[in-house]
């Protein structure tokens, strides 16, 4: 695509709106917020590779993969919403935002399904019992893996719930006001949504693909 053609619709003024810069700074802090947990995970993943691998095999690989696809698609629809709002198309914007919300909700639904299986199998930290050990490795370290799993996916889910809330809010505003006035909001929300997606992009191999 030629740069000039792109410019008409998406003014490449190198000065973004101030809110966009603010959102980027916020995302940088979020990277370090999750990053601290990732750092911790990395240490144990390295130390207890065997136990982590056998614990990871207890996760639902299928559901995890499907969920990744769902979330990636939601990012796509979010990007569409930004494109639509720039084209000043209110209907397309709302449709794309609604799709994003639905996909986000599907993700949470699938996640909930996984959780419910894992609760039933007594894998959650406070329900873990003596029969925890499976495969090779140490039961304690397999529990550690599951604790990380719940902490990381839980925290991610909280972020996603917030994201869904914000997207719903923005959709309502888009209904009420004209597209030009919500452009920055949609853009900022999009950044946040994509960031939450990126977190999952890393969580997926870190949790579901250990030792596979």
């Amino acid at each position, binding site marked *: 695509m030629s740069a000039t053609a792109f410019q008409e619709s998406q003014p490449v003024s190198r000065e973004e709106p101030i809110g966009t810069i*603010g959102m980027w700074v916020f995302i940088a*802090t979020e990277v370090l917020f999750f990053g*601290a*947990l990732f*750092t911790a995970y990395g240490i144990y993943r390295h130390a*207890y590779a065997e136990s982590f691998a056998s614990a990871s095999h207890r996760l639902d690989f299928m559901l995890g993969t499907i969920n990744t696809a769902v979330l990636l698609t939601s990012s796509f629809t979010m990007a569409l919403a930004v494109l639509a709002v720039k084209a000043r198309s209110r209907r397309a914007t709302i449709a794309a935002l609604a799709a994003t919300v639905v996909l986000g909700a599907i993700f949470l639904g699938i996640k909930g399904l996984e959780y419910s299986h894992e609760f039933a199998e007594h894998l959650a930290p*406070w329900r873990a019992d003596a029969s925890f050990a499976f495969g090779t490795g140490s039961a304690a*370290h397999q*529990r*550690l893996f599951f604790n990380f799993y719940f902490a990381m996916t839980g925290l991610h889910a909280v972020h996603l719930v917030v994201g869904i809330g914000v997207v719903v809010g923005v959709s309502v505003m888009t209904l009420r006001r004209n597209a030009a006035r919500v452009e920055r909001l949609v853009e900022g929300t999009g950044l946040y949504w994509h960031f939450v997606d990126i977190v999952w992009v890393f969580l997926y191999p870190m949790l579901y693909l250990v030792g596979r």
Partner: protein
Amino acid sequence: MSTIAAPSYLQAGHTLRTWYATSDHKRIAWLFLISMTAFFFVGGAAAVVMRMELVTPAGDLVSDETYNRLFTMHGVIMVWFFLVPSIPATLGNFLVPLMIGAKDLAFPRLNLLSWYLYAGGAVFVILTLLFGGVDTGWTFYAPYSTLFSNSNVVLAVTGVFVVGFSSILTGLNMIVTIHRLRAPGMTWFRLPLFVWSIYATSLILVLATPVLAMTLLLIAIERIGGIGIFDPSMGGDPLLFQHLFWFYSHPAVYIMILPGMGVVSEIIPCFARQEIFGYRFMAYALLAIAVIGFLVWGHHMFVSGQSMYAGLVFSLLSFLVAVPSAIKVFNWTTTLYKGCISFTAPMLYAIGFIGLFALGGTTGLFLATLAVDVHVHDTYFVVAHFHYIMVGGMVMAYFGGLHFWWPKMTGRTYSERWAQAAAIITFFGFNLTFFPQFLLGYLGMPRRYHAYPEEFEFLNVLSSAGASLLAVGYLLPLFYLARSMLRGESAPVNPWDATGLEWQTSSPPPVENFTTPPVVTQPPYQYTPVE
């Protein structure tokens, strides 16, 4: 650029609501100032009781349990509820928009949210106090904090967690403001060094605080649900906690000094009537400290069982980060050379700052020297080191800045005499309190000791005597500043004849800061030393 009498920000409304729902950065600065002063005295009161306890070797005044809670609450309150937000959220909030010629911060309502988060965190800390405090030390080391302490760890940790987000939002606001809201002509190298210091501080606030937040969250989860990340019996590594904690807390000590450096860099040129020496080096040094400061955290862990190689790397990097601080000390000193110096109260604080910071920093070098740290780690030597920098340095700078900009903030003048007296009393009280602690430390008195062997008594008595003098030095300003607020003469626009945009608008400034949008044509600090 002169100012016509527009209503000042203080006159812009008198109901309570115009304060607690304001989005004016100048009023929010006051919200922070008042709440933080309260916490300073709460933390100070804890210190007073501790120093009283330590007058005698036996632990006779308070129980060991109480003593442990005292120094923990002292540390937690002084660090997170006083010193971290001290200059950035008060002077920074008030001055950054004025200094760069903006109407307000980039996100005024976010700024108010910062204060509410601070207040929210404060509620948790007050609850912690009411339920009997917390006894882990301000460092919350696992596994003591997670598995063994039976004090209110979760409450305290939540308070710090919440106040952390206040820090993050302040930092975010400052970064965006400084990038985007500078007045025409205000290029990066025309920024006052105070603005540079707030910028460097904000980088740390934004990049380090989230790691603390996660770490504390893990502590809370561990206590509530038993997640095992720091629990050795589940394969957790207690040293991991220390890494995560110090990844925040070492940069955080620079949060607690950079703004002070900024303040001093404003005061010194003004009262020496001389351009700051080496402006660019000064600006780069601030950034260098902020960035390299992230690479040295392991110097708190030299005897923790950390790998020897990591110890070597962290020691070397700690020396590296001291270089820009050295540059700053030399440049301030040189700024005095051939100046025309008047010893107003702010200047006394600023000169005190240089001396005490140099001493505190140099003892920091002792601590970074591996084999010496093995001996003095967790002794009073460390306590003396950081009080020299944090109290002798930052608190001095904070008081200096408060006096320097007081006429601008309130539109009133204060009693110069009393202010000079307070500065001098503080200086001597401070040294008497903390210098003996260096000696105690090398003698081997461990910190966080409620009772101690008798041979340490003499030095402890000296230290406690100094603390009472220090208390006087800190209580005095309460009185004469209150008096100034109520009955002080009204201050001129530019009482110190200083450069800088903030001195060109009225005292106190109008709501919009400037009646005509300022345009900048000069670098900062255009002073001439002739009388």
